[in-house]
């Protein structure tokens, strides 16, 4: 039973991180129908920025909680900036190009960013400082819920709530939904579509950065390649839930996280990544609309 609970919690944690990344995929897809292949790299850059900033601050002897706050903030700022810039360079000039062009451009961007970090930093795994403090009250349950796990679950919950409120009730949320429904029409009624697209990239990137910092401090090490696998899995989650749908991405992420956790726990850990890929292939073949999407997906 305890093993089951452990796997269950592991699945929830995975799911939370996937959700934070998957939201970026699903929002961007909802608005410009592009699989933003470089999104995984944005997440990786977030984690790297946090690592670098935290290390510098640690050498300077700043307090642990302050480090956490500043590193998280820096990761969010920089990931957003990268997301914004990537869109301007690699996607904006291709708004009216054939469908495959931006996708190839996105793959190119992803490879470029990976190697940029590889060359500017290192190809080795870097130990990630433990930024999250130990909570005394959790000690009795430490085998089931570690402090980082609690923080991940709480943060994800809060972020999801804020995002839902943003999309439902703010002006920019309305503009995003309008653009997702019909870009031309949104333009005609005075929505600044380019701005909406930029903001979507910025929000998606910020979420990925949060995910990057949280998972890096949970696992304890990062390298330039973490974005690739995480990106594909989060994309799988987004498709599983129905790409373009925000609640779908969250649901898909938890389904994928739990599936992976139980499959590696009860079946075989050698094939950890195969489960995700196989799930992706199966969904796309048998239910390309995803769990929450029908033939026409519900968009942002």
């Amino acid at each position, binding site marked *: 039973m305890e093993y089951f609970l452990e796997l269950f919690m592991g699945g929830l944690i995975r799911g939370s991180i996937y959700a934070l990344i998957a939201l970026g995929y699903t929002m961007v897809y909802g608005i410009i129908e592009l699989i933003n292949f470089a999104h995984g790299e944005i997440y990786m850059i977030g984690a*790297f920025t946090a690592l670098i900033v935290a290390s*510098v601050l640690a050498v300077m002897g700043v307090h642990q909680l302050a480090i956490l706050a500043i590193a998280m903030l820096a990761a969010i700022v920089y990931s957003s900036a990268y997301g914004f*810039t990537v869109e301007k360079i690699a996607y904006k000039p291709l708004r009216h190009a054939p469908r495959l062009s931006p996708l190839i451009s996105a793959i*190119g*961007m992803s*490879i470029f960013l990976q190697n940029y970090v590889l060359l500017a*930093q290192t190809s080795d795994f870097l130990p990630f400082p433990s930024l999250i403090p130990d909570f005394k009250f959790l000690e009795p349950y430490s085998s089931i819920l570690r402090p980082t796990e609690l923080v991940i679950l709480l943060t994800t919950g809060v972020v999801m709530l804020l995002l839902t409120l943003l999309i439902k009730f703010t002006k920019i949320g309305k503009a995003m939904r309008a653009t997702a429904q019909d870009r031309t029409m949104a333009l005609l009624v005075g929505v600044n579509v380019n701005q909406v697209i930029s903001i979507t990239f910025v929000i998606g990137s910020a979420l990925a950065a949060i995910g990057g910092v949280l998972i890096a401090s949970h696992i304890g090490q990062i390298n330039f390649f973490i974005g690739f696998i995480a990106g594909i899995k989060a994309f799988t989650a987004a498709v599983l839930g129905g790409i373009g749908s925000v609640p779908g991405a969250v649901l898909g992420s938890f389904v994928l996280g739990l599936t992976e956790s139980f499959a590696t726990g009860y079946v075989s850990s050698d094939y950890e990544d195969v489960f995700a890929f*196989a799930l992706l292939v199966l969904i*796309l*073949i048998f239910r390309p609309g995803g769990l929450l999407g029908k033939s026409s997906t519900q968009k942002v």
Partner: protein
Amino acid sequence: MTTFSELKKSFLTALWFMFLTFPIMVIRVNTIDKIVIWRWRNMGYVGVASFFLSLAWRYFLRRKEAGSKRALSRTANSQTLLERISSERRYKIPAMTAAAIGIIMFPFIMNSYQTNIMITALMYVVLGLGLNIVVGLAGLLDLGYVAFYAVGAYTYGLLNHHFGIGFWAVLPLGGALGALFGVLLGFPVLRLRGDYLAIVTLGFGEIIRLILENWNEFSYGPSGIAHIARPSLFGLKLSFFGEIRYLYFLMIGMVLFTIFVVNRLQNSRIGRAWIALREDEIACQAMGIDKTRTKLTAFALGATWAGMVGVIFAAKTTFINPDSFTFLESAMILSIVVLGGMGSILGVVIAALILILLPEYLRAFSDYRMLLFGAIMVIMMVFRPQGIIANVRRSYNFKKVED
């Protein structure tokens, strides 16, 4: 659009990039010894480079927009030098003769190291031409192409290891198994839309690699298969140099064979159907073309080449393991097709040679090779999606019946 405002824009862009690259380019932390290294010079490089690059970027973007407006009024004579050489007979024959002499002399002038690099480049030419059928002609973005390459390599590796079967027997078998896998993987996924297809093929590619890595009993896992036999020449025992030259000419033959076949395919009923499929799937179907079948032939034929080159790869290196078949390999082959020009045979040949040989010969480039590949994909898509050599449509001879 004054010069001053242009400079100001570029200056701001440079500042933005200096900010953007600051943590990753400037700071380097050694987390174990807790030392921070500040590399301020990098910031200067980034600033200067992004200033000039942004000037160039906007200049070319404007030129491209102006160009597309011109193209609307009439197809301009915007052929590049290469396109002119390849299309005019006057240049074509001397150019081809020179190329032929160069190709034959190459392994005798150059040392074995150079020849080996050339063999690798030629393998990528064939891989590029094979993927070109799938991506360039049929418009199916296959990101798992390397899986078929792996199928070929492991076919030869395993058959040679267990049963001692020779290269020439396995070469066609590798192609056939590649095609078979193409059909098996293609059948369920080909009804998917373009971008989903890309992701699913990527997933398949990774699944095959992960299986090779973990199924020790079958594929010997990460340690791979060693001592695979090199190709034989009528049972003759060749010297080390002889073997390399032999492989070189084998590869030249392979390239010529591929060009011949691909050229004939793309100017045939099937080839036209592929291009039509790429251009407009719905219209293509409405014109009586069986979508699934056409896609499947493209997928299988593309995979055939990958399977055959896989066999050659195993024979060349005599050692294979799953590390040679990562997604990056697929991405590299894709960037060859993108740079060369989708559907253009000459373009793909030249692109493969540039992309494989350049990093080998310019040592400074070799570290930046993947960075370069990524950048090429973005830049080509933005500025010249038709590739360095655009695929020129052929004109046909017909009887005029004027009445």
